[in-house]
């Protein structure tokens, strides 16, 4: 009976994780459209500011380091998960959550500054594509943070079940995926914009 249950769990894990990868690829394609749009429109500054004028590279680097670190701590959390260590899972995902939150706060302050000086998404096609690309990433981070919060509540209340372990694995995949997308944003938008 237990053998049968383990077999069923293995099948479920396999197809669920595979399905989640397929979903991540479709999400990547959505980002692809945003990157393509950004590439085409980033020169259309229409008498507004260009990337060079508004991008603060040290600031973006700080955001990048925070997000990369959060990916590392998420990895530690999954390691703890594999070792069935409930407290460490809570600790490392908790740190990941705080780092993700700081990332968001930093990003929002950057946006706030731009809007206050009149360079909002309404100003030009360049700014529209910049704001939508970075905000889409930010919205995904927000969704991930909600997911993390609810998952941690479940870990606290019911401990680590096979189903929850699977879902936390999916969450970590999601988080790493967002990190990779951010690397692209950092490169294409900030680094290339500063040249």
């Amino acid at each position, binding site marked *: 009976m237990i053998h049968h249950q383990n077999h069923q769990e293995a099948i479920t894990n396999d197809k669920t994780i595979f399905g989640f990868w397929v979903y991540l690829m479709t999400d990547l394609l959505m980002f692809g459209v945003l990157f*393509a749009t950004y590439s085409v*429109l980033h020169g259309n500054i229409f008498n507004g500011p260009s990337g060079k004028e508004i991008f603060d590279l040290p600031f973006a680097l700080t955001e990048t380091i925070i997000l990369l670190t959060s990916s590392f701590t998420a990895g530690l959390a999954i390691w703890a998960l594999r070792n069935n260590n409930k407290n460490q899972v809570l600790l490392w995902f908790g740190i990941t959550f705080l780092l993700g939150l700081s990332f968001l706060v930093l990003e929002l302050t950057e946006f706030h500054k731009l809007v206050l000086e009149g360079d909002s998404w309404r100003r030009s096609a360049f700014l529209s594509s910049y704001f939508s690309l970075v905000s889409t990433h930010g919205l995904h981070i927000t969704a991930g943070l909600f997911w993390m919060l609810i998952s941690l509540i479940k870990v606290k209340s019911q401990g680590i079940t096979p189903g929850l372990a699977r879902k936390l694995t999916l969450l970590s995949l999601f988080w790493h995926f967002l990190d990779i997308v951010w690397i692209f944003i950092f490169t294409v938008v900030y680094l290339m914009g500063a040249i």
Partner: protein
Amino acid sequence: MEQFILGRLTWSSLPHEWFTLGGTVAFATILIGLTIFLTRVKRWKWLWNEWLTSTDPKKIGIMYIIIAFLMFLRGGLDVVMIWLQQTIGTTSSPGYLGATHGYLSADHFQQIFTAHGDIMVFFVTMGFLFGLINLIVPLQIGARDLAFPFLNSLGFWLYFAGVVLINMFFVLGGEFAAAGWLAVAPLSELQFNPGVGVDYWIWSLQVSGLGTLIGGINFVVTILKMRAPGMSLMRMPMFTWASLMGMILVISIFPILAMTMILLTLDRYLGMHFFTLDNGGNAMMYWNLIWMWGHPEVYVLIIPVFGIYSEIVSTFAQKKIFGYTSLVVAVGAITLLSFSVWLHHFFTMGAGADVNAFFGIMTMWIAIPTGVQIINWLFTMFRGKIIFKSPIYWFFGFVSTFTFGGMAGLLMALPPVDFQVHNSLFLVAHFHTMIVGGALFGIFAGFTYWFPKVFGFKLHERIGKYAFWTWLVGFFLSFVPLYILGMMGAVRRMDTYSPSLGWQQLFTVSLIGACVIMCAVGLQILQLVVSIIQRKQNRDLTGDPWNGRSLEWATASPPPFYNFAVIPQVHSRDAFWEMKNPKGISSSEVAKQKKTSIKYEDIELPKNTPMGIYLSGFIFLFGLAMVWHAWLFAIIGLVGAICCVILRTFDEHTEYVLTAAEVEQIEKKLRAKS
């Protein structure tokens, strides 16, 4: 405050023109009639428990097909209105019912052809195909269900929400989009279309598009992960291969559509400048993006249909499919190449001769694997013994019309030729030949072929043949005049033409063709009604009415809800044919194998759930509220949807166990019936 709750919905928005009110009354009558009927026969609970909350792909498939059929009638009505207007309305004819010429105003005419296109592509063809794949693919691969049963239910209800959204303007009024079925920018921007029309378009397609994407992921994972033991990829039936390729296309392109519509939404709702005429917007970007989705989309419509034809040809020629490997390679090639041709939809928009040449060549290339498929089907029939039943008739109809329209497409693949016929009725005739002669005939073929499996009795054969011939005649009568008119210079999407051009007779012939098609559809409805009345005489008792070759025919008709009591072991292609005609084993050995008692095991099945309905309901509310800028309801919809998702993740008991004893009982009853 009122603005926050109701947005721009006012009393004057509500339906008040004769055509809108006609639709309102029609929908209201149908709804009230349905409510009275269900109350009378006391079937509300049954409907909820057996059908609406079901996660069984066979039930979900049937629901898809029913809704698709209803939308087919609506899209068809739109067509008749278009044809009527073009026949009686010329630049010098009188105007009736408030129109300047004919009986439809220009704006109304534009809304109708926009609605027609969106309904037929998204809600009819995609709906039918998703229904068919749900019904047949799990059976063909020897599986019990899709990979993610709850997501299957959710996908259907999101589709249904999209259907309701696109028809909502008959309830709340406003207007429908008048910017063509793809709502091209900059026409669809606020500058030219500030009303709710384009927003209805955006939100109904976003909501159903989400369902499509979810369904696509589900099908891909199912086909790749849940095949019966022994069924390698190269042993799958061709319909399963075709569905896999079609769904790979779906998961690749629907993110593009979703994001493009989001960019348009951002322009319209937040004042951004992606596709506007000012502030650096670039409308060409919209055209590129929307056709990067749009071209592969038409392959999504046709590739599964090619799979249907492969099954039908091989079954009715009583021969295994010729060139299985080349068919798989061809279908894969079409899938890949479909990403490289999108610019042929706008050769005339100034990309230059070099770019046009590239896309023209790629468009010609894609005809080659399609030709390979047709040659394989013809060679399958060569030296076969053809059984002339209505499914194969639809195939013959397809071959004649599709090759005809395909050659028109090859003609337009040449940019210089395309410059003459771009956006003319020649183009309209070409793509309708592809979709009607190709996809729709295939859907009818598949519907007739698999009907006995799904419902347990065959369709009336003779009426089916009459319906086919009527369709074929009506189709050529309707569309050949359009090819001619297009060649003579008739532009598409015009509500009136000058009578001095002398084209009205051809339009009249086309209208007669439309009437013949209406008779054909009437015959199909008649076939359905007569077949249901005569179902006891036409029962399929063996589960294998056509002497089929693939695993779906190895089950009872209709199959039990768990499909297979014991998952079959597959040893070759045409798995069921091998089971019926095993090589190297004597018939006594076969009989002995059948007699040995089957070992039943417990089966885990997904429970029914209403969560798909609730979640889609909230998303529907969100979409509708966004159309009307009713921000309070938008927030309620969004928050409600998120809560539903969270609630669902807390549900630990989504499956139940069917014990081996129960399975044995059901199997005994099924065998007693046959």
